[in-house]
């Protein structure tokens, strides 16, 4: 058993490739870009939500104002076939 593990002791140190630093810097910068993309997507989603919400509340107001109009109208105003 010791013989097997002694083989592991002979493993030599390896010099990392020179291009690795640039690769790491590139991926760090890409990460920053990804953050920007996420922020933009969140902003757009937020804008769409706000728009939808305001559109819905506008429609609700329209309906409630019409409802008020019908409710306030006198009984003889209603049309019967």
């Amino acid at each position, binding site marked *: 058993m010791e013989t*097997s593990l002694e083989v592991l002791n002979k493993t030599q140190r390896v010099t990392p490739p020179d291009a690795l630093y640039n690769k790491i810097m590139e991926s760090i910068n890409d990460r920053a870009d990804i953050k920007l993309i996420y922020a933009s997507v969140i902003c757009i989603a937020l804008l769409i939500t706000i728009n939808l919400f305001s559109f819905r509340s506008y429609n609700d107001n329209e309906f409630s104002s019409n409802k008020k109009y019908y409710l306030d109208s006198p009984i003889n105003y209603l049309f019967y076939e």
Partner: protein
Amino acid sequence: MFNEKVDFKNFYEKYIELVFNLALNYTANKEDAEEIAQDVFETVFKKLEFFRYESKIETWIYRITINKSLDYLRSKKRLKNKFLSNLLFFNNKDGINEGVNFNHPGVEFENKESVQIIYKCLDKLPNNYKTVIVLLKIEGEPQKKVAEIMNISEKAVESLFFRAKLKLKDLLENEKDI
């Protein structure tokens, strides 16, 4: 956090050899080690501002590299399992643990075959057994430092190494029988 690009370059130059070789000793594959090193330095770049200096920075880097290497191996194994079961429509358990795609430039040619077998068995060991063998035997770190990195006592390192050796011996014997 790194204010200047030069700071990060100095930091990188100081620790790249440690990170790369440790990852290489876990994965036994140069490309995988590069990917892990990349991941480690990205994490360090992001997290250094939160480092509380309760332990040495080198110990912290050791821990990040070990965790990233183990995560990488786990996800690779999972991916391999999924791929094989999808491809073959049955669970080929013997084939799955065929182990690492061996490409360790630090291993001498005459030892390559035996080291490859050891790595295949190492891959089947629990994470803490694997870590103790990598740090003590391959990295050649002293017991005290290993205890510090693994955040356990020196006595615990000793007994962990003893158990790891026994388990590895069993696996190697099984490998010979096959």
